């Protein structure tokens, strides 16, 4: 018996709809452009197996960033982890490098913890088991290999398995400010070390000695007349802003940024992007792209906006797109504004809101008022975008520049100890302050209510070692 016509039409429509939906989802999954296409992004979203961690949520739709090959497995993921985090781990002198676990003598440890792969401890898309630092292991992972630590260090007798990290003593990867001899070297330091200033940026002084510095484009001579075509120069304010900058003083004219070479021909670009800035500011741009402000751009996505952030942000800033000029403002490039107002204009978390009541801000105000020398104030950038000194490859020049990856010294916050806190504060005070999360929320208004015992333990041990040496010397003299 033939099917009624209406039912046939229903099945045909159902078939067409099914194929359309399947096709839409398939394109969303397979087309790389789906991550940036507002129509296809929802299709890709369907395939996310779970909420991503704070470290990766910005790029969660760029599946290919981590899953380079659909059949790459855990090893394939490892390559992606190392692409972004490998250098950071090397710089941190990782205490648990892969090579430690690939050594056959540690085969028993490897059976307990497959620590040759990042994803053993940091599984993505599993919010229900994700703990601080993106760790997805149970909290007793140190215990598996170090349960008999008290044999070597009697002072550790009776310590609970979950105190290795919380005591401010040990970190799995980065222990640059936590090793015993370092603590011993900084015992008894005062809370404030004295009058200190940030090292001054010195790009202009050393730029001329860079191998391959494009001196033809940027002649390092002060510029007084803008070289933009007259028909394009509509804002005298922009010219005034530019004339007041280090750019004008250092030979960077309008054409230096706006005349960009593309496919062999030079053309005028109205809004140069971060790639143009990288011509001279390569390390700064690299840092920006590695951090949370620029990681979307680094993965070929649209720029990050405060509206996409998980942290509290001001509603008025929701749609601001983050690039170099969003903090530095085009033409003016006011580093003072970039150091505070650019941050507080978007961020609305407790720590940021409390900044204006903090002793750090009081110093910053005094610096702005000319009451203290340059570099005396503590801005947002002083701590979150610290100044690093590095040797310029191929020359003897040492350049002081701003680390533009503001995530570099966060999570865990102990990463700030050496490059930031200890510039002004004693190690003991700084360790206690960082461990006091309520104090951090108040932007360090007040004194630490937490006392980390690691320095006391080291002080005791130093005394014991000295006493043993004294006894040995006395015995030798007899």
């Amino acid at each position, binding site marked *: 018996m033939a099917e009624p016509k209406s039912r046939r039409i229903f099945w045909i429509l159902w078939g067409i709809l099914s194929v359309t939906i399947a096709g839409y989802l398939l394109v969303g999954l397979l087309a790389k452009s789906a991550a940036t296409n507002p129509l296809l992004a929802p299709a890709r979203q369907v395939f996310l197996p779970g909420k991503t961690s704070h470290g990766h949520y910005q790029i969660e739709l760029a599946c290919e960033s981590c899953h380079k090959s659909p059949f790459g497995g855990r090893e394939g993921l490892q390559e992606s982890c190392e692409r972004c985090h490998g250098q950071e781990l090397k710089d941190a002198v990782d205490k648990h490098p892969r090579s430690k676990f690939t050594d056959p003598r540690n085969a028993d440890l490897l059976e307990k913890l497959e620590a040759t792969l990042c994803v053993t401890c940091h599984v993505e898309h599993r919010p229900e088991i994700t703990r601080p630092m993106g760790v997805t292991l149970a909290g007793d992972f140190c215990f598996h290999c170090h349960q008999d630590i008290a044999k*070597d260090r009697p002072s550790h007798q009776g310590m609970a398995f979950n105190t290795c990290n919380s005591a401010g003593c040990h970190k799995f990867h980065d222990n640059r400010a936590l090793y015993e001899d370092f603590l011993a070297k900084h015992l008894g330091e005062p809370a404030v070390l004295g009058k200190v200033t940030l090292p001054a940026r010195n790009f202009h002084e050393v730029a001329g000695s860079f191998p391959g510095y494009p001196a033809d484009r940027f002649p390092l001579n002060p510029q007084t007349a803008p070289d933009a075509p007259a028909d394009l120069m509509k804002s005298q304010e922009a010219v005034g802003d530019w004339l007041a900058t280090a750019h004008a003083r250092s030979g960077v004219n309008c054409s230096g940024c706006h005349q960009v070479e593309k496919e062999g021909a030079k053309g005028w670009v109205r809004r140069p992007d971060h790639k143009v800035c990288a011509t001279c500011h390569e390390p700064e741009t690299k840092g920006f792209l590695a951090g949370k402000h620029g990681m979307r751009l680094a993965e070929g996505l649209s720029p990050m906006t405060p509206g996409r952030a998980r942290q509290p942000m001001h509603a008025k800033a929701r749609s601001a797109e983050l690039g170099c000029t969003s903090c530095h403002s085009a033409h003016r490039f006011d580093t003072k504004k970039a150091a505070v107002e650019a941050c507080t204009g978007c961020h609305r978390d407790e720590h940021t809101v409390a900044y204006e009541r903090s002793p750090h801000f009081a110093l910053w105000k005094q610096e702005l008022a000319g009451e203290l020398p340059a570099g005396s104030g503590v801005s947002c950038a002083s701590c979150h975008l610290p100044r690093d000194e590095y040797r310029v490859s191929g020359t003897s020049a040492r350049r002081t520049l701003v680390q533009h990856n503001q995530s570099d010294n966060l999570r865990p916050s102990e990463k700030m100890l050496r490059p930031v806190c200890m510039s002004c504060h004693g190690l003991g005070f700084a360790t206690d302050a960082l461990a006091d999360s309520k104090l951090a929320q108040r932007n360090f208004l007040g004194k630490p209510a937490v006392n980390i015992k690691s320095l006391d333990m080291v002080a005791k041990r130093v005394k014991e070692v000295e006493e043993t040496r004294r006894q040995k010397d006395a015995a030798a003299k007899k």
Partner: protein
Amino acid sequence: MKSSKTMLAILTAAGLTAALPAHAQVSYKDMADALHAVMESDRTVYTRMVVNRLQNEEKVIKASEHFKDDKALPLPAQMFRFGAEMVAEKKMPFSYSLQSLWPINKQNMPKTALEKKGLEAVANDNTKPFYGEETLGKTKYFTAVYADKAVAPACVTCHNEHKDTPKKDFKIGQTMGGVVLRIPMK
């Protein structure tokens, strides 16, 4: 005509092959000895010509465990370990480490039964290496242990004076530990 030429070529090739010595298979022991010869020589050169000369004799620069912070030379043991880590990163079919029955860092104590046996053997007689086989994980290894002797005054002074050392009376020429070298067996 063509086929006879081909036959001649084949016979010549076969004759040459028979006349040449077959590629000798390098034994695990020979391979381990050769690798160790390079390691030991490099490390001795670094210890004598860099660390001992610059730190102890000419007093130009110190060597320190925290060489980056102290702007000093890496210790010979660290130089050796960094090399071992680099080899591990290259995924070479062998691995090696520096261990001791009296280590400053307790992680460098022998762990496997064979390591302990080997380190004890070279401590008792440092004139010959120790060889053995062991299975770790699911892999069988040829394991060789070579005596690591104090080759310069810097070795004994640093070890004897270190706050974490369990032995404070090392003398030049004595065995301080051993190089444990492993090759996975097929």
